[in-house]
């Protein structure tokens, strides 16, 4: 299991390849990648991601271990960046390896839902008009209830 919190970019291809290799009994690998998007007005300069250094790794490990308890997983990968990111840059990725496709997909969705609302990261959008903290959505909290 690899959990990483870092400011520097990661290589999606290299991470996915490394994660997918070395198993003989994992029939399904799912990866998800989150990307900074300029959705609202087309004037996003950058996104600044703040985190709680003392707590972040522990929170991510807890979420990953919860996924391993619930689904049949051979391995889990979580990488989450912080600091300044430009539109189009990758923010984070998760990967799950399982003997079965359903477990790999469901566990990846579970990881994403929990990363959104239970991992101590906060996003701020910097536009030409100023800076705004991204507000959590009710639907993000609701998404946890399905698990």
């Amino acid at each position: 299991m690899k959990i990483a919190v870092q400011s520097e970019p990661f290589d999606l291809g290299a991470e996915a390849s490394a994660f997918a290799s070395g198993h003989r009994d994992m029939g399904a690998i799912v990866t998800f990648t989150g990307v900074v998007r300029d959705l609202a007005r087309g004037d996003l300069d950058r996104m600044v991601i703040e985190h709680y250094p003392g707590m972040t790794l522990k929170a991510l490990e807890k979420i990953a271990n919860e996924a391993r308890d619930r689904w049949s997983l051979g391995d889990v990968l979580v990488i989450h960046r912080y600091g300044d990111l430009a539109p189009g840059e990758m923010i984070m990725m998760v990967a799950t390896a399982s003997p079965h496709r359903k477990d790999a997909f469901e566990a990846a969705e579970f990881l994403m839902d929990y990363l959104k609302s239970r991992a101590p990261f906060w996003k701020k959008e910097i536009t030409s008009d100023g800076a705004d903290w991204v507000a959590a959505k009710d639907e993000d909290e609701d998404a946890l209830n399905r698990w």
Partner: protein
Amino acid sequence: MDVLYFAWVRERIGVPKEVVETQAKTVTDLVEELRGREERYAAAFADLSALRVAVDQELTEFDASLEGAREVAFFPPMTGG
């Protein structure tokens, strides 16, 4: 104990971290003490439903005990992923 603030809570209070001498028994008691200090605290803690709290780096509720706690952190709902 160490009190930490993140995101707009940090910006509103003006510091990321401070040492607070307190006899507060619960998080709510600590919030009441901080609110009484200065307007910037009252403003930051005006609506607790907009805030989350962690005690010793574990998410918890505002009625949580502070017995033995070394670190309390206040922040808005998280926006990871």
